[in-house]
């Protein structure tokens, strides 16, 4: 059974009337088809307010990501956190919604400089499990009025409430960009990425891709980009052969995890201490890609293998993004954290309406 409300009020009524658990889906480009009843957000679509001179966008949650990006691009602006298109690497179809992006706190390479999705999100409206409309944050950039439920909702994966409306701080598209490529193996990459991120040259992307090497992006005014890429090249050539490229497609590929698309095996993502990325990559073996200066490591491993166990020890978090192995998609939370998480979910959703996905690995095989 699939519900597709057209308004926030209709959605609120629907939740109030629901007899039992549902799954929430935007475009279902990431979460697999729901096992039971689902709510589709596609009917809640469209831009509510866009003020380019204030760098603010308010948009309904079911709006396709591509439409959000087109509206912004028409004014020379963009979402700072650079969300990707993962359909190829996940082997899925459909249309990602901005609500799905927020519900996953999905962020791309620019996270190292502009922050994650949650850092650009300045306001939310959502329906909780009682069917109440809840607003938090707003449309201004600086706001500490009351608790920050905006952060709670970013990354909440449809398990606290259904997002209906989102406000973002957006940014101008930089007029110029360049990439310094340093030819090093993955084991040496974290040192190169850290050297660049520890320099004053304002790096907005720091990745490692097999066959290319360490990739460092700078963006900004043309003179500044020329200056900083040259300085970075000088700084990093002590660590490996360094050259400058101006092909922006390098970063579309990193954003979309394209180097790992079409390969066999399960897809895993690690969030870890950057300096541990080299050792973790070595332990895992197979195909890997680094982003966020080494703070994010992507890996393809043979089906069913527990990459989390192989990678240990490391500080951080590993999530299985595809496949149906014996290892859970997410590791269990420490007891004290789980107690709070469970308490919050019960507080917002006492009937467990948003637990449709709770026990399932919401993953494409």
């Amino acid at each position, binding site marked *: 059974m699939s519900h597709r409300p057209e308004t926030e009020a209709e959605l609120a009524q629907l939740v109030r009337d629901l007899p039992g658990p549902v799954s929430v889906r935007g475009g279902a480009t990431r979460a697999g088809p729901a096992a039971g009843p689902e709510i589709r957000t596609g009917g809640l679509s469209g831009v509510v307010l866009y*003020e*380019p*001179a*204030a*760098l603010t966008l308010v948009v309904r949650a079911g709006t396709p990501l591509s439409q959000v990006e087109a509206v912004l691009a028409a004014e*020379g602006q963009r979402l700072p956190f650079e969300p990707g298109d993962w359909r190829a690497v996940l082997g899925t179809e459909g249309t990602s919604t901005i609500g799905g992006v927020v519900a996953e*706190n999905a962020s791309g390479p620019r*996270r190292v400089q502009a*922050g994650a999705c*949650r*850092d650009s999100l300045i306001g939310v409206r959502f329906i909780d499990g009682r069917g*109440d409309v*809840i*607003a*938090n944050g*707003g*449309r*201004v*950039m*600086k*706001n*500490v*009025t*009351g*608790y*920050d*439920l*905006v*952060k*709670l909702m*970013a*990354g909440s994966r449809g398990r*606290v409430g259904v997002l209906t409306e989102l406000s973002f701080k957006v940014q*101008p598209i*930089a*007029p110029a960009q360049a990439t310094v490529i340093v030819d090093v193996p993955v084991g040496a990459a*974290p040192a190169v990425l*850290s050297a660049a*991120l*520890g320099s*004053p040259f*304002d790096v907005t992307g720091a990745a490692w891709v097999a066959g290319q090497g360490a990739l460092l992006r700078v963006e900004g*005014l043309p003179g*500044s980009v020329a*200056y900083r890429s040259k300085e970075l090249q000088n700084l990093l050539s002590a660590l490996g052969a360094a050259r400058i490229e101006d092909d922006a497609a390098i970063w579309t590929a990193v954003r979309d995890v394209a180097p790992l698309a079409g390969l066999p095996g399960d897809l895993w993502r690690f*969030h870890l*201490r*950057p*300096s541990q990325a080299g050792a973790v990559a070595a332990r895992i073996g197979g195909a890997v890609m680094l982003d*966020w200066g080494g703070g994010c490591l992507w890996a393809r491993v043979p089906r069913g293998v527990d990459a989390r166990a192989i990678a240990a020890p490391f*500080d*951080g*978090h590993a*999530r299985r993004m595809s496949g149906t192995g014996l290892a859970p998609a997410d590791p269990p939370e*420490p007891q004290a*954290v789980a107690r709070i*998480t469970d308490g*919050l979910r019960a*507080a*917002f959703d006492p009937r467990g309406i948003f637990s449709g996905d709770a026990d399932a690995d919401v993953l494409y095989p």
Partner: protein
Amino acid sequence: MEMPPPDPAILSRKDQIVAGLRAILPADAVIDDPVETRAYECDALSAYRCPPLAVVLPRSTAEVAAALRFCHEQRVPVVPRGAGTSLAGGSMPTADSVVLGVARMTSVLEVDYADRFIRVEAGRTNLSVTGAVESAGFFYAPDPSSQLACAISGNIAMNSGGAHCLKYGVTTNNLLGVTLVQMDGTVVTLGGPFTESGGLDLLGLVCGSEGQLGVVTEATLRILPKPEGARPVLIAFSANDIAGACVADIIRAGILPVAIEFMDRPCIRATEAFAQAGYPDCEALLIVEVEGSAPEIDEQIALIRQIAARHTPIEFREARSEDEARRIWLGRKAAFGAMGQINDYMCLDGTIPVSALPEVLRRIGELSREAGLEVANVFHAGDGNMHPLILYNANTPGDLERCERLGAEILKLCVEVGGCLTGEHGVGVEKRDLMRVQFRPADLEAQMRVKDVFDPRWLLNPAKVFPLDASAARRAA
């Protein structure tokens, strides 16, 4: 402003409570002498004061946990405290509460330049976090003007901002992890020196929760490499709305200054009299600061000059030396001190959409004339965070009340045009009773449910943030 009456049962058990605390904490960590506890009777919102029952100053997370566990059992309210510089009454006690100060927890626990983070005890001051990493060319970005005194714990609780947050964000954008002690003594680690922990963003929820969800004892903070240089320009205009339009154009052009500060005529006049910074005679002025190497700064300033020219400024002054840069900032930095010289003042902190700037300034002018109190405006124009300063005389009976009424009207105006009550100082007790202007009952209820989860007995900083009648049932339970 009203506070709930102290619980007589707790007041009458004072000796027993203090003895209980002494039994579990080192002798010098518990203060109950009325002369000494007076030092904790207020924060920087000094119009309101009340000495606490007792003060505890633990030296470790374990001691914090022991003190909280005891107060939890005894059902004694606890008010967490950093340096006491809150402008919202956030760390102001009640007579039946124990103040838990983290001022003795100031150590640096770990610094890692490769992974770009520092882990500190939460009582460390903001400026001394930067001090610990400066020699390696790094800094901690959020820089509230109180940074010499304020503690990281207070910054986290208030989600504090600073002059450079247009580029670097506020505390929540630079916080990687905390150790949090819940009211029942449970120690929780949230986040760490990595980007995400999976699960709900509890760290984001704790940041800005005004000491109501737990006591923060350690923090992992992102550190950044220092830019090569910085340079301010000063642009003077003949009208507020022209200055406002210029701000909008700078932002649209894709330049990302680290700061855009705005001062109106009353503010310029007062600071000139006080600091003699040599500001031009004008209705409004902007200070715009950009960063980078010298040629990069030149490139950005050339663009800003072009944009400003479209708005026929009275003057465009570019700093050609360190000394000229200092003079450009001098008046801005002296603004609050200048106001303090001529008058008592109340500093507001609402945020508005940048586009509403001219209208809001006009209406503040009208409200100010109606109330018969002068208002000077100095604020972070890039992000719409306003700091109207209402001038009053504390010795004139009724003036404080008039001033507070005008303040409430101005904050309501901020909300009406699409903004909020507070951009960086927090709600505390000061804006508590205005919360319904911004939030519907369901919105407030949702926030209070979060507190129910972290602190079911509502003992941590209970009489803050939420209108007293909204939280009454929970506090009484």
